[in-house]
């Protein structure tokens, strides 16, 4: 039997029962469509987050106190408590030519009050380098002035949210606020642009790092943010940071150095896993479609008993019957998958219209995977009915009308 004849026989057999064929196509189309749409959403979300992280500042390196890796082997005999990361450590890092900006960070929470209103807010102690490093923008006034970072000064910069809550629409620059039990003069307000993932830059007060240390009575830093001089310098900058800190900490490697690339890679992995998960959940609907296909094919086989008996009587072996029914299931799955892709394209287009800001991206692998899964479900769930047809006893199938 020619392949062409096998295909046209199976195709016409499925067209002979339009209702069941339509149902199968619908089930397949919905399954394939939801796999593709959900992975499109997942991939879009991944790209969105990665994009946001790239906004965070380029060539970013973060130094945290303490080692984060847990290394195997026996615990040290003498308990080594990690040394604090100090402001002097941070300033020493400026030595390296691979490093452009160094912004030490001290973080705490304190009540901030002005004009009789009070709010508990995050207080961030840093240096002028934070502005370019986090790509912040000023709405009014100016950012922290250059100067000796170890000198405290009673000045602060407000995030736009806290400014609005304390002062409303009234100008805030030049006014003063009370943070804890100290007074600070407001020299600037951040704009609501330049906000980036990882920290809410609206509800925040930025003060010189030494002032924050005095306020919270600490000598250590929360972390140090560093911008390498360019992308290629990231590796060298990391080595330089490690060497400088080691030298200052009596030869101990007691800090963790994280690069933006590493963070991005982690997020990338998380989102790929997430996308695969939702696509996998959607694939369950393909399984449901498969079961529907099996049922409909089983009905088809019993409807076509006498046809199968006849085919055997005029010389078709059981294997040929099996092939014919499997090809029928495969054709239905593929056509259903094609409709599913059309459905997904239409759905994506509509989503793009409704949420124009959300980056939708239809990943090619999801198209291939959806069609592949559709075809294999069709075949897997088509096997049982096809085998039943192939095993029909011709005498019995022909004895009834």
């Amino acid at each position, binding site marked *: 039997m020619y392949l062409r004849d096998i295909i046209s026989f199976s195709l016409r057999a499925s*067209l*002979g029962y339009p209702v069941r064929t339509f149902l199968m196509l619908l089930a397949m189309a919905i399954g394939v469509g939801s796999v593709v749409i959900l992975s499109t959403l997942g991939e879009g979300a991944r790209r969105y987050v990665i994009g946001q992280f790239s906004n965070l500042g380029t060539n970013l390196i973060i130094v945290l106190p303490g080692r984060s890796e847990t290394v195997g082997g026996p615990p040290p005999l003498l308990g080594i408590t990690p040394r604090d990361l100090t402001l002097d450590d941070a300033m020493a890092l400026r030595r390296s030519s691979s490093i452009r900006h160094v912004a030490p960070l001290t973080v705490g929470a304190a009540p901030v009050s002005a004009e009789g209103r009070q709010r508990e807010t995050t207080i961030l102690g840093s240096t002028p380098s934070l502005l370019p490093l986090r790509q912040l923008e000023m709405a009014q006034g100016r950012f922290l002035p250059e100067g000796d970072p170890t000198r405290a000064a009673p000045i602060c910069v407000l995030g736009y949210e806290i400014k609005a809550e304390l002062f409303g629409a009234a100008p805030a620059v030049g006014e003063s606020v009370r943070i804890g039990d100290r007074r600070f003069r407001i020299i600037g307000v951040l704009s609501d642009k330049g906000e980036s993932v990882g920290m809410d830059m609206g509800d925040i007060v930025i003060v010189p790092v030494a002032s924050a240390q005095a306020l919270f009575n600490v000598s250590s830093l929360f972390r140090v943010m560093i911008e390498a001089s360019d992308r290629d310098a990231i590796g060298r900058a990391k080595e330089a940071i490690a060497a400088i800190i080691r030298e200052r900490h009596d030869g101990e490697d007691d800090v963790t150095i994280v690069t933006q690339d590493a963070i991005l890679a982690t997020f990338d992995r998380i989102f790929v896993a997430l996308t695969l998960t939702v696509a996998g959940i959607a694939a369950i609907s393909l399984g449901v479609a498969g079961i529907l296909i099996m049922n409909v094919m089983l009905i088809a086989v019993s409807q076509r008993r006498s046809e199968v008996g006849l085919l055997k009587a005029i010389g078709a072996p059981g294997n040929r019957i099996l092939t014919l029914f499997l090809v029928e299931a495969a054709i239905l799955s593929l056509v259903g998958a094609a409709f599913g892709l059309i459905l997904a394209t239409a759905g994506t287009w509509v989503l793009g219209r409704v949420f124009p800001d959300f980056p939708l991206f239809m990943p090619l692998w999801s198209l291939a995977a959806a069609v592949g899964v559709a075809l294999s479900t069709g075949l897997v769930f088509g096997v049982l009915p096809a085998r039943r047809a192939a095993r029909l006893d011709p005498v019995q199938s022909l004895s009834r009308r």
Partner: protein
Amino acid sequence: MITLAGICREFMVGDERVAALRDVDLTIATGEYIAVMGPSGSGKSTLLNIIGLLDRPDAGTYLLDGEDITGLGDRQQAALRRHKIGFVFQFFHLVPRMTAAENIELPMILAGIDPSERKQRVAATIDAFGIGNRARHRPDQLSGGQRQRVAIARAVIMQPHTLLADEPTGNLDRVSGGEVVEILEDLNSRGLTLITVTHDPDLGKRAGRRIRMVDGRIESDR
């Protein structure tokens, strides 16, 4: 040439064994015209199904053209059905979604015959059977007699040497039944071995050899 020796066929109905054929011996020469007759349940259809390789005997040997077919597999038996045996049924068994011409073409499609040759042979057969103006009709648009003619055309399109017809006129009125018998006898006169099962004594008389079955045995063979 068909040779049956000691053929037995039993069915299990519930816990009971029903013997449909008991120790049947039969030799049929090429070109014979045989009518198989007998009361209902005497094993006529079962005999025909075994000769047509739709069913397997439980015991005995069956030689088709000198070849023992009892040990053949599904594939080889299917090939023999395709090339050596044609079937005509009481209920026609045309594929409802196919036109008359397509039903006639079906055995050749299964046999993998080239499309251009298929077309030629279908056209010739349709002419020979006088169904030219009905070739594009579906079975439900045909009369019983026309359907059975299409079915016979389908049975002989592969040029088998034996045609098995199980009550081919059982579902037809006298006139179209007569026409169908004429077609079958015409095919027989051209050398085709014809074995029909019938309840109609007049029809039986026309056959060159009458086999009467009772209770799974051949009672008389003249």
